[in-house]
């Protein structure tokens, strides 16, 4: 499986990518920026994505939903319905509504751990089975 990870922290990105490969979960392609992710989404079809939507220190921008919209509106090489998890500093009611509208499968809150991201990628290969496990474990879902 080819999957996409959009996250600015290099150590977290590389750890997830290398561990996914060693565990046989799949190939996690790394994008450090939204711009890099946009290019990759046009060039290759992915079967799932974990996307950090925090804008960091940019003025007036808390979350960037642009990538989600592009995928869900069919403006990428991937199927518009691929499973997507988002990474976010904190979940507000408004944000959760926005994510639900975009059919986000899972929300991952800080502190971001490689293990949690790997679980998300692993769930993409068996969505139905893993979804029931996540619900049992009480993991937040949009």
């Amino acid at each position: 499986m080819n999957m996409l990870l959009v996250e600015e922290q290099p150590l977290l990105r590389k750890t997830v990518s290398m561990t996914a490969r060693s565990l046989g979960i799949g190939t996690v392609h790394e994008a450090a920026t939204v711009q890099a992710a946009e290019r990759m989404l046009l060039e290759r079809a992915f079967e799932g994505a974990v996307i950090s939507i925090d804008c960091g220190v940019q003025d007036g921008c808390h979350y960037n939903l642009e990538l989600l919209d592009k995928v869900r509106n069919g403006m990428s090489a991937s199927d518009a319905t691929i499973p997507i998890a988002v990474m976010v500093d904190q979940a507000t009611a408004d944000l959760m509504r926005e994510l639900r509208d975009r059919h986000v499968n899972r929300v991952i809150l800080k502190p971001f751990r490689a293990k949690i991201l790997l679980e998300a990628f692993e769930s993409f290969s068996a969505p139905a089975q893993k979804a029931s496990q996540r619900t049992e474990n009480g993991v937040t879902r949009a």
Partner: protein
Amino acid sequence: MLPAPIPDYDKERLAALREMLILDTPPEQRFDKIVEFAAQEFDVPIALISLLDENRQWFKAKVGVDVCETTRDISFCGHAILQPDLFIIPDARADERFADNPLVTMPPHVVFYAGAPLPLPSGHAIGTLCLIDHKPRSLDATERAILLSLRDLLLEELANRAEEI
């Protein structure tokens, strides 16, 4: 207590370590980031990059301890470098090799230990990337794989550093 054994090839191992010109050098952000990441990822109070010198283990990067070295004989890492795989002690208090080790009976009160050896291309392990907790625990398959990935990233940084010198 079983003192950390000295392998037959220790002379060659020490020569390889000293060629790296890394012992007793100042902290470096690229290594500090790795132990900070490891401590957060595994939720442990202590994470170290420990290098095994002739009579001591010296910490190139550390989270959760103030000292920069201990003697080699009491080091857990001295055991960890003797094998290619992860060296995991779920509860040192229940392990006769470590139960009366001063690192267990006195601060920093090591209970759980997991060390990933740092092999050079020559095959000699110069030290470990290790995790320590004050309570018993274990690592599942995913956590073991994550620790090995972090170890591999650390080896890349060590190789990059060697090229820069």
